[in-house]
C-alpha cells in the first residue's frame, strides 16, 4: 500500500485502470435510480483515467526500458498467476487511445442516451468496458491479458444487447459473444500449450525467449496459430467476421467505441503485443497474412451492397482490421500499430457523426437521411466527410499516412500479390465510402417523392427537438465529434515522432534488435526505391475510387444505382455476406441442434433412462410373477412341497 503512494507512476496506472471498475460497482449498486449522478460518476472516473494515461505517457516518454510491476495474484502449487502493469511504448500509446476514445464516447452519450430508461445501466456497462479494456492493454502477462480480454467480450455482449427488448439486439449480443468465444478457445488452448511447454506467460519474457530461440520452433508455430484464433474472433477476421456487422444493434456510441479503440482493436493489439514472438513462426505469419487479405477483400465487397449507414462503417472496420493484420503479418510492426491508432480516431469519428444523423432522423438508411436533408446538419456532415477522406486514405488526413505505411510494408514483401490486394482494397474502400457520402450530399432520384413524404411524416418529431440544436444535448454530441475530426486531420503528421517512440528504446522492436533476432528486416517501412511510385499508385487508387463513386452517385444526372445493379447475382451475394451467416446457421441447425444435441438427448431419455426404467419394470414384473408362489393356499403349497421332495429323492436315487 505504501509503495503505491510513493510511486506516482504505479499510482497513476492503478488508479487509471481500476477507477472505472469502482464506478461500475457504485452505479449498479447505489445510483441506478439517479441518472445524472451515474453519468457524473462514470465520466468522472474515465476522465481520471484519461489524465493518468496522459501523465504516464508524458512521464515515460523516452524512458529507457519498459516499466513493469508484478504482484502475485493466484498461487496454486506450480501455477503462479501474477497481476500487474507493463508500461512500454505500445501499451502507453494504446492506453491513451482507449482513454481518449472512451472519454469522448461517454461525453457524447450524455446527449445521445438522454431520456433512455436504461441510462444508468448504460454507464455502468461503459465503465465495465473501459476498465476491462485498459486493464487488458497494460497487462504484463498473456494470462492477465486473456482474463480482461474475456471481460471485454462480456462488456461488448452487454452493450450490443443493450436494447434487450429488441430480439435482433439480444441476438446480436449473443452472436458476438459466442463467435468471439469460439476464437478464444484457440487462444486459451494456445496459452495452455505455452504454459506447459515454456512455463511462462510474461509478455516480455515470451518475446525474448521467442527471439532467442529458447522455445522450440514447433511450439511457437502451434501456439501462435492457436493464439491467432483469438485475434480472428475479436478482430472479426474471416471466417469469424459476421458478428461485427450485426453488432451495430447496440446504441451508436457503443458502436463507435467497439469499432475503434476497444473490442476489435483488442485482437490487433494482442497480435502486436506478442509480435516478436509471433514473427518467429513464418507459417503463422503466412496464415495471418492470407486471412487478413481475405477478410479485407470480402468485407469491402459487402460494404458496396448495403444502404445502412452504420453497416457500411461496420464493414469498413472489418476490412481495415484485415488491412492491419496484413500489415503486421507482413512484418510491419509500426505500420500495423500506426493504422490501429489512426483508425481508432477516424472510425470513432464516423460512427459518432452517424449517431447524430440517426438521433435526428430515426433511420439508418443513408438514402432517406440524404433525402430528408441530412446535409443541413453542417457539423456532423463536414466531420463525417473528414472521416471518410481519412478512411479512403487521402492526403493530408491521418488514414493516408498509415495506409501508406502498410502498403510500403506490403511492397517489400517478396510476393507482390499482397500489394495488389492492398491496392484493390484501397480502391474499394474509397468507392463504398464515397458512395455513402454522395448519397447524403446529393440526394435525388426516384425515391425523392417518397423522401418528401417521409420528411413530412417525421417533421413533427423533428420540430419537437428543434431546440436541441443549441441545447446541451446537441453540443455534448457535436464537441466530441469536432475533437475527433481535428485529431484525424493532424494525427498523420505525428508519424515520425510516433515511430521513434514506438520503435525506440524499451519498445518491442528495440528488444528485437537487442536480442539479435531475425525477421525484423521488414519491420521498417519501405522508404525504398519504389516508394514514390507506390505513393502515387495508392493515391491514384483512392482518388479513382472516389471518382468512380462520383460518376455513379455524385454527378448531376447520376442514376445512383451503382454498377452492382447490373449483376443481381453478385449484388445478392454481397448483400447476403457471401452466405456466411446462412452457412453457419445451417451448420448449427443441422449438425449441432438436430445432430449431436438431438442424439444425446434421445440417448438420455431412451437408452439411459429407458434402461433404468427397464430394470425397474423387470424387477416389479418379476416380483409379480414370483408372488404367484405365495398364494396362501395350503393345498397348493403341499403340492409344491411333494413335487420338490420327489425331485430330491429322484436326484439321490440317480446320483
Amino acid at each position, binding site marked *: 500500500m505504501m509503495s503505491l503512494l510513493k510511486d506516482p507512476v504505479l499510482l497513476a496506472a492503478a488508479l487509471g485502470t481500476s477507477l472505472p471498475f469502482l464506478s461500475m460497482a457504485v452505479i449498479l449498486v447505489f445510483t441506478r435510480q439517479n441518472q445524472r449522478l451515474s453519468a457524473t460518476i462514470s465520466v468522472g472516473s474515465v476522465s481520471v483515467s484519461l489524465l493518468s494515461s496522459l501523465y504516464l505517457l508524458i512521464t515515460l516518454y523516452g524512458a529507457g526500458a519498459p516499466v513493469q510491476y508484478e504482484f502475485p495474484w493466484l498461487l*496454486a502449487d506450480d501455477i503462479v498467476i501474477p497481476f500487474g502493469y507493463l508500461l512500454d511504448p505500445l501499451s502507453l500509446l494504446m492506453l491513451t487511445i482507449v482513454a481518449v476514445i472512451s472519454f469522448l464516447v461517454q461525453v457524447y452519450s450524455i446527449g445521445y442516451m438522454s431520456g433512455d430508461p436504461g441510462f444508468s445501466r448504460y454507464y455502468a456497462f461503459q465503465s465495465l468496458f473501459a476498465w476491462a479494456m485498459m486493464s487488458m492493454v497494460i497487462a504484463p502477462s498473456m494470462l492477465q491479458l486473456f482474463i480482461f480480454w474475456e471481460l471485454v467480450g462480456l462488456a461488448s455482449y452487454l452493450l450490443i444487447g443493450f436494447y434487450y*427488448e429488441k430480439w435482433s439486439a439480444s441476438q446480436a449480443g449473443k452472436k458476438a459473444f459466442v463467435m468471439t468465444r469460439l476464437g478464444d478457445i484457440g487462444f486459451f488452448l494456445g496459452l495452455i500449450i505455452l504454459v506447459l511447454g515454456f512455463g511462462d506467460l510474461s509478455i516480455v519474457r515470451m518475446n525474448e525467449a521467442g527471439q532467442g530461440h529458447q522455445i522450440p520452433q514447433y511450439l511457437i508455430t502451434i501456439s501462435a496459430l492457436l493464439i491467432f484464433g483469438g485475434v480472428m474472433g475479436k478482430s472479426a477476421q474471416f471466417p469469424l467476421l459476421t458478428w461485427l456487422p450485426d453488432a451495430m444493434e447496440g446504441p451508436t456510441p457503443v458502436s463507435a467505441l467497439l469499432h475503434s479503440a476497444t473490442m476489435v482493436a483488442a485482437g490487433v493489439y494482442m497480435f502486436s503485443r506478442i509480435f516478436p514472438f509471433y514473427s518467429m513462426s513464418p507459417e503463422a505469419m503466412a496464415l495471418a497474412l492470407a486471412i487478413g487479405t481475405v477478410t479485407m477483400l470480402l468485407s469491402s465487397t459487402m460494404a458496396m451492397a448495403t444502404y445502412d449507414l452504420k453497416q457500411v462503417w461496420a464493414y469498413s472496420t472489418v476490412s481495415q482490421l484485415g488491412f492491419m493484420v496484413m500489415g503486421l503479418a507482413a512484418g510491419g510492426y509500426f505500420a500495423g500499430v500506426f493504422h490501429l491508432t489512426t483508425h481508432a480516431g477516424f472510425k470513432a469519428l464516423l460512427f459518432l457523426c452517424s449517431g447524430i444523423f440517426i438521433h435526428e432522423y430515426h433511420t439508418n438508411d443513408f438514402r432517406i437521411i440524404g433525402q430528408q436533408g441530412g446535409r443541413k446538419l453542417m457539423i456532423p456532415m463536414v466531420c463525417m466527410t473528414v472521416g471518410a477522406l481519412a478512411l479512403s486514405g487521402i492526403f493530408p488526413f491521418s488514414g493516408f499516412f498509415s495506409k501508406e505505411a502498410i502498403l510500403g510494408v506490403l511492397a517489400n514483401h517478396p510476393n507482390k500479390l499482397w500489394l495488389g490486394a492492398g491496392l484493390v482494397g484501397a480502391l474499394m474502400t474509397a468507392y463504398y465510402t464515397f458512395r455513402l457520402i454522395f448519397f447524403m450530399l446529393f440526394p435525388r432520384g426516384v425515391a425523392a417523392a417518397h423522401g418528401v413524404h417521409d420528411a413530412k411524416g417525421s417533421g413533427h418529431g423533428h420540430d419537437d427537438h428543434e431546440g436541441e440544436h443549441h441545447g446541451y444535448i446537441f453540443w455534448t454530441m457535436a464537441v466530441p465529434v469536432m475533437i475527433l475530426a481535428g485529431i484525424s486531420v493532424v494525427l498523420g503528421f505525428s508519424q515520425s515522432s510516433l515511430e521513434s517512440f514506438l520503435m525506440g528504446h524499451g519498445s518491442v522492436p528495440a528488444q528485437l534488435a537487442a536480442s539479435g533476432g531475425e525477421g525484423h528486416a521488414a519491420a521498417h517501412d519501405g522508404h525504398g526505391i519504389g516508394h514514390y511510385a507506390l505513393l502515387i499508385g495508392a493515391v491514384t487508387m483512392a482518388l479513382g475510387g472516389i471518382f468512380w463513386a462520383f460518376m455513379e452517385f455524385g454527378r448531376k444526372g447520376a442514376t445512383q444505382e451503382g454498377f452492382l445493379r447490373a449483376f443481381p447475382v453478385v449484388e445478392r451475394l454481397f448483400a447476403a455476406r457471401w452466405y456466411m451467416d446462412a452457412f453457419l446457421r445451417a451448420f448449427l441447425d443441422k449438425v449441432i441442434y438436430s445432430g449431436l444435441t438431438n442424439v444425446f438427448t434421445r440417448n438420455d431419455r431412451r437408452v439411459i433412462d429407458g434402461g433404468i426404467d427397464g430394470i425397474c419394470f423387470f424387477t416389479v414384473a418379476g416380483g409379480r410373477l414370483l408372488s404367484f408362489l405365495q398364494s396362501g393356499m395350503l393345498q397348493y403349497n403341499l403340492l409344491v412341497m411333494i413335487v420338490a421332495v420327489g425331485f430330491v429323492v429322484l436326484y439321490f436315487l440317480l446320483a
Partner: protein
Amino acid sequence: MQMQYAGFPYLSAILVSCVGGLLAILCIPGERTRTIRMVSAVSSGSTLVLAAYLFVSYDRALGGLQFVERLVWIPQLGIHYFNGADGFNLPNLLLTGIVFFTGVLTMWELQYRVKEFFALYFLMVAGVFGLFMSMDLFFIFVWYDVSLFPMYLLIAVWGTTRKEYGAMKLTLYLLAGSALILPAIVYLFVQSGLNTFDIVALMEPGVFNASDQRLAFLLLYLGFGILAGVWPFHTWSPVGHVAAPHAVSMVHAGVLMKIGAFGVLRVAIFLCPEGWKYWAQLMALLASVGIIYGALVGLRQTDLKYVIGYSSVSHMGIVGLGLSTLTVDGLNGAVFQMFAHGVMTALLFSSVGYIYDRTHTKMIGELGGLSRVMPVASGYFIVAALASMGVPGLASFWGELVVFIAAFRIYPVRGVVAVLALVVSAVFMLRVVQRTFYGPNREEHARLPDVPFFLGVPRMILAAVLLSFGLYPTLLFDMIETASVPFMAGLPK
C-alpha cells in the same frame, strides 16, 4: 497426518446448532410459521457463522487436520466419533453453511406445511455437515444416508414437476450408490485387519495391497460418483433438480453433488491411491464425456431447472476431470470448482425460485422480457449464468482454468474436448438468458414486483461470494493447498 485437537468443539457445534434447530422446530406448533422461520434462520445462520469462523481461523501455515474431536464410540468395532477440518473439507463446510442459510431465506415465503419442511430440510443438511467433517468411515456412511432420506419426502411432498417420479428415481439411484459403497467399506475394514474405521489410520501406506485398492476404488468411485452426477449415471440429477422445491434444489445441486465428489476424494482416493492411479484413465474419460454431453443436452432443454441441471452435469465433469489428473493442481482445481459450482448453482436455483414464485412457470417458452419488470432478480440470474459460462472475475473461472491446465498435462485430447464445451455452455446459458429475460415483456407478467430488499438477501450473499472468490481466488487456493500438497507428497511413488 498431523492433528490439532480442538479446545472448543466447533465442528460439533455446527452439528448441534443444526440438530438443535431441528428439535426446536419440532417443538413449535405448526401454525406459528413466523417463529419457525425465525428459528430456522437463526440456527442456519449460526452454522454459517461457525463455518466461516473455522475457515478464517484455520492455521494455514500449520496445515493438517485441525479442530479435531475424537471419541471412541464402539470400541469392539473400532468406530469413533471423529471429526476434523482440513483444506479439503473446510471449503465444503463453508459452502454448506452458505447454501443452507441462503436456502432458508429463499424458502421464506413457503406456506404449505412449513414446520415439516424445515424439519426435514434441517435433517438433510445435518447429514451433509456430518459427512463433510467426519473422518470415520462408518460415520461417513451413516451421514450419507441421513442426508438422502429426507430428500425423498422433500421432493415428493413439496416438489413440482413429476415429483413422485423424480423423488423415486433419485432415491433409487442414490440407494444404488450406497449399495456399492457399503460393501466397499466393509471390505476395506476386513482387509485392513486393523479393526478400525478411522480414515487417518487406514490411509497409512501399506495397509491395503494393490488389488484390494483397485476393487474397492472402483466400487467407491461408482457409488459416490452416482451422487456426483458422473456420466452415464447422471439422469437422476436433472430430474431431481426439476422436481425439488427451490431450497432443496439449491442444497441438492449445490451441496449434495459435492458430497459425491468429496466422497470420491476423502474415501476412495485417500484410502486407495493405487486404485486411483489404476482407474484414472476411466475417470478422465467419463468426466470429459460428461462435460461435453451435459452441455449439449442442456442446449435442448425447455425448462429452466432442466437447463441448470444439465449444466451441473457438465460442471461436475470438470470436478471429475480435476480429480482424475493425479496432480496437486488437479486436486486444487477440483475442490475450487466444487465450491464455485455450489455457490453458482445455488444462486441460479434461488433466482429461478424467486421467478417461479411470481410467474408460476419455469418453462422458458412461457417467460420472456423479465428484465423490464424485475431487473434485480434478472440481474442475479445473469450473474450466475455468466459464472456458469466461466467468465473471469467470477469464481468458477479459476476452478476451470486450473483444472484445464492440469488436465492438459496428462490428457491433452480429452482436455481439448472439454474446453470445446466452454463454447456450448456459453451458447446454452446465453440462449436461456435471452429467452427468459430479454425480448418484449409479456402482458401477464407486466405487473410483477421486483425483489424487495429482504427477499433479495440470499442472492446478494451468493453473488457477493462468487465475486469475491472470483476477484481474489488465492483466498481459497491457499486453503486447499494445505491439504493437497502434503497429500500428494505422502503418496508412494
